[in-house]
């Protein structure tokens, strides 16, 4: 019994969705949003991020490892569920089902997203406004972005709501309703920021 570390790993999975991955999501969206003010502002912001000290250590420790851990463990968790939305069409069961669907779609989106930005960058391409603009010039890729953004904002917002339950912060009906209100607000605000940003790259 002592060697059973499930509790620890599941709590780590839960918190990793907020810290660091959720925090990174906010930073990432904020940088993307600068595209709304024009290519130059965006290039400055991207260059600033690119010139941060300990860049590779931070990328690996704060982004890659936590994402891989949360994503792979998340797929394992999602596989444990036998989704039964057709028999039980309750509101929270929809959220539950969609949390799993969105997690898997986010995983696929991120493989594509990293593959079309960071991988070319590793081979010398410059990450800038033009790189993203030439991607979203293709309507299929723009569609990938829109779906990827909405899946991510849903997954994070609903994840935030359930995280409050997972950690025993929202226990009674009143606080759990409040948690849902926060989730809905997060979803609207983050989706607004994310979509405004990606459409700023469309000419």
């Amino acid at each position, binding site marked *: 019994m002592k060697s*059973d570390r*499930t*509790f620890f790993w599941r709590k780590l999975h839960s918190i990793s969705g907020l810290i660091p991955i959720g925090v990174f999501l906010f930073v990432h969206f904020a940088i993307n949003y600068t595209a709304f003010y024009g290519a130059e502002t965006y290039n400055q912001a991207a260059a600033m991020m690119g010139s941060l000290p300990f860049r590779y250590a931070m990328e690996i420790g704060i982004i890659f490892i936590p994402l891989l851990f949360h994503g792979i463990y998340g797929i394992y968790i999602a596989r444990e*569920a036998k989704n*039964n939305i057709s028999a039980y069409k309750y509101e*929270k*069961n929809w959220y539950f089902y969609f949390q799993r669907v969105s997690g898997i779609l986010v995983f696929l989106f991120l493989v594509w997203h990293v593959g079309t930005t960071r991988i070319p960058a590793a081979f010398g391409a410059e990450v800038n406004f033009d790189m993203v603009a030439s991607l979203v010039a293709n309507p299929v890729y723009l569609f990938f972005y829109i779906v990827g953004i909405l899946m991510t904002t849903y997954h994070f917002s609903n994840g935030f709501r359930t995280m409050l*339950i997972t950690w025993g912060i929202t*226990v009674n*009906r009143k606080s759990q309703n409040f948690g849902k209100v926060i989730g809905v607000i997060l979803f609207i605000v983050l989706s607004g920021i994310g979509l405004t940003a990606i459409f700023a790259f469309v000419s």
Partner: protein
Amino acid sequence: MTTNGKLVHLKIRRQDGPSSDSYVEEFEVPYRPSMNIISALMEIRKNPVNKDGKETSPVQWESVCLEEVCGACSILVNGKPRQACSTLIDSLEQPIHLAPLKTFSCERDLIVNRKQMFDALMKVKAWIDIDGTHDLGPGPRLAEEDRQWAYELSKCMTCGLCFEACPNVNDRSTFIGPAPLSQVRLFNTHPTGKMQASKRLESIMIEGGITSCGNSGNCAEVCPKEIPLTHSIAAMNKSTTAYSFKRFFVK
């Protein structure tokens, strides 16, 4: 009471034994006002003839109290997990589909083996330890304020509807299920039960324990006793989290 010729049309998923294949058999039984599922099944037992007029074996089911406190007559009624005793024919669309719960293994017809739930109650120590061979006098009292909500949790009759509706209770997962987690809350609230609180918490902080809950909320939706299972689980999330810190830093 007269039946004035009205019939109740039933489509029942049957199975002759634990390892037999299942099949559907249809029945028509005379209608009476205020019938429940059990009384319709009793009509079949009285006259085990199916809709085609062929004599058949009477449909087997389980029930004890007939007043929704024992939890034995859980079945799927038109796809929804219900207590057969408190489900009235008048409230249902016909034909009425009856089937055994799917989460548990079928013994025969509508009877399932509910052992996994009782095993889970053992795992989480859902009882109050008695003191010993000698009389230790009365235990501490429970505050009225807590008694009121704890009483609601004590209505759990281990009927298994929450197991049936939970997407995380299945053969791919080791989850012990919603009801046992609520029982931990109940027994950890009891002033004498509290003395073994950490043992109960430890019993749900392992694989298949509380962290296997995915917050689908179906348990509370289908609970026939309206037990606030989701809030119980959240309360246990709080207790186990606090206990894990205490165990790491203090104890």
